[in-house]
């Protein structure tokens, strides 16, 4: 058995990654299980209303490590927990905090996938003698001979599609990554888990951002900044309408996200929504639902998957947040090679700086970037 065949599976202790590991092990592959320890769930526990005892279903909780270890033991594969806390804080938590403080709405999962998970996992895999990695993401990854490129595609279960968070994968990463669940639906994955006798087959899915227990961003920001001995920057400012009329003041831009309706602190006969957040002037613009619609968006820090680069305009569908139904648009090259502009056929609601825009051609991910 040569080392080339060893596959390192990222195991979170959830159903998906456990089933991915089980499928590979039962197919006779040589498998090593790895859990990335990213965040110490006890670190900010009990501060500023953050729950004391982290519950299961969040990465790095002790229960999840226990579950992952048990699955690995059941499959008879070696299993290790790898400490990536320092990198996670540097590459994911810090950027998340600064983006939020700047009035943008970041997606830590994409940051993590782009900067840490795949990159670090591949490196760890190689250093322990495995050449490929596998994860429990719902996506399909195939090599296309004609184009000479690795293509990322939407999975069989569109409801579980995670390609939106995977747009940053490079060709080199895709070439060494397996997504064993890509052609299965979630119910089929649970069935597979049961078939392999995994005790966690019925474990509920996790939903929250792993390092933010309870999902309250503001609690997290306050507690994290306090731990770091930093103060929350003063970002209070004016609340204005799109015509410039001042409606009042707000207490800080990090309280808002584009499209938000609740908690604006002003009375109005018609519902008001956040339209724009200016991180320089701290001005928050609000307006009617109809004003939220935008015809164009610009994205930068692009990564191309099905193409080497965009040379001429292209018809694509663009997804602008996790639960968004991709919308038709024309994608045009920008003066900068790592940026592009998308013009929607129909205006889209709440295009939010800081989120990512991912471009699809049918089932294929063309590429994606960060909305500016």
């Amino acid at each position, binding site marked *: *058995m040569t080392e080339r065949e*060893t596959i390192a599976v990222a195991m979170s202790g959830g159903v998906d990654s456990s089933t991915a590991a089980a499928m590979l*092990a039962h197919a006779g*592959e*040589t*498998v*090593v299980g790895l*859990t990335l*320890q990213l965040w*110490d769930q*006890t670190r900010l526990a009990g501060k500023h209303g953050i729950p004391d005892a982290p519950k299961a279903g969040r990465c*790095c909780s*002790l229960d999840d*490590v226990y579950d992952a*270890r048990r699955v690995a033991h059941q*499959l*008879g*594969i*070696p299993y*290790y*927990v*790898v*400490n990536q*806390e*320092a*990198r996670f804080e*540097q590459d994911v938590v810090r950027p998340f905090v600064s983006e939020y403080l700047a009035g943008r709405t970041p997606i830590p999962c994409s940051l993590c996938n782009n900067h840490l998970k795949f990159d670090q996992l591949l*490196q*760890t895999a*190689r*250093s*322990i*003698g495995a050449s490929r990695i596998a994860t429990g993401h719902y996506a399909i990854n195939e090599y296309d001979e004609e184009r000479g490129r690795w293509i990322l595609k939407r999975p069989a279960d569109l409801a579980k599609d995670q390609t939106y968070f995977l747009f940053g994968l490079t060709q080199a990463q895709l070439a060494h990554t397996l997504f064993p669940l890509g052609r299965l639906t979630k119910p089929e994955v649970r069935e597979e888990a049961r078939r392999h006798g995994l005790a966690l087959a019925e474990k509920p899915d996790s939903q929250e951002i792993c390092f933010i227990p309870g999902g309250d961003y503001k609690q997290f920001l306050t507690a994290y900044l306090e731990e770091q001995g930093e103060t929350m920057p003063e970002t209070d400012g004016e609340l204005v309408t799109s015509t410039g009329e001042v409606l009042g003041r707000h207490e800080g831009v990090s309280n808002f996200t584009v499209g938000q309706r609740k908690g604006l602190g002003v009375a109005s006969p018609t519902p008001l929504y956040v339209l724009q957040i200016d991180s320089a002037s701290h001005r928050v613009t609000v307006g009617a639902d109809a004003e939220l619609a935008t015809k164009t968006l610009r994205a930068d820090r692009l990564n191309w998957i099905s193409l080497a680069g965009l040379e001429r305009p292209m018809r694509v569908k663009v997804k602008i947040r996790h639960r968004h139904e991709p919308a038709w648009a024309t994608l045009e090259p920008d003066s900068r090679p790592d940026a592009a502009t998308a013009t929607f056929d129909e205006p889209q609601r709440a295009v939010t700086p800081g989120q990512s825009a991912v471009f699809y051609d049918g089932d294929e991910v063309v590429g994606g970037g960060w909305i500016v």
Partner: protein
Amino acid sequence: MQNGLQPTARVYMDANATTPLLPEVVEAMHPYWMEFFGNASSIHLDGQRARTAVDHAREVLAELFQCHEAEVVFNSGGTEGDNTALVGLLRRGDHLITTSIEHSAVLQTAHRLADRGVEVTFVDPLPSGLMDPATIRQAIRPHTRLISVMLANNETGVLQPVEEIGRIAAEAGAFFHIDAVQGAGKVPLDVRRIGCHLLSISAHKMHGPKGVGAMFVRRGTPVESLLVGGSHERRRRAGTENVPGIVGLGKAAELAMRSLEDGAWDRVAALRDRLETGLLRLHGTGLNGTGGDGKPVARAANTTNLWFDQVEGEALVIALDLKGVAVSGGSACHSGATEPSHVLLAMGLDKTRARASLRFSLLKTATDADVDHVLRVVPEAVEKLRAVSPVAAGTLG
């Protein structure tokens, strides 16, 4: 292991984590599981059988410690001994002196006591890993009640100057506890010469069973038991005696004393030195725990701690494990991931170097073939790691 990743031949070089039972120990324990199962506190003959076995083990331990039998208390191991010494002696307002390189059984207990109003001073070691007795002397205060220092450090093997520290404790009128978990069985003990009041050991670090240990408690030391209940162990530790465990500990101690006389450790030291010299031939490699002359300070015969430049120790441990070599790097945190060793950090290593460090601790039964195997596997693994991992060139803390 169905996936064929675990080679059949494994070399275990993590003796400071735990050791296997020697066959003589298993044999000695065997009758006490089913045949002589009595409760050592019972009046009847079944109880008396058990009592005799416990008493015999006590005699052996008294010989190991060089103390009176009445000064031996059996317990559940090193953590309980360390906890008993600190919690059993210190009250609000007392002062404790310990070191920053102790085992977490002492460090965490000290932190908890600090939360409860005990004043604690953590003294740092010299860069060699050795405690300077003068720094302990400087830490003495009028209300210093206890000094707790380890005999041999678990990460570096460095032997601490406990006799000198014992004299300092005596001058200050403070109690002195020694965590001898790593030292016991590797170096001779003599509690009178050291001048300690308390000393803790654990069976499983010296080829005895897990979950059992013993403590030397000098007569008249007012240490309170952690566990309250029956009048076992002369009221110093409640709870039915772990008879098979105590028998195993007694046999392990007997064999350990024999090893101290028959040159077994000289043989291990020679193997360790050959391993160390071989690994130090790799470029970008160095020894943790050297004095100003670059030579290692006095340390336990079985331990060496080395750094490998541009290597993530955690990945190296995994890579070696998959090649059949068991070693350790740093300490395992709550989830099982590796944290940089607090001992190496206290010695002044930066985090990157501490994370690039590995501990090799040889069993008393180590062989030339073990060393040959490790000397074959480690250079390959290090080379591979350096090729694939830039280790972020020290940018991460």
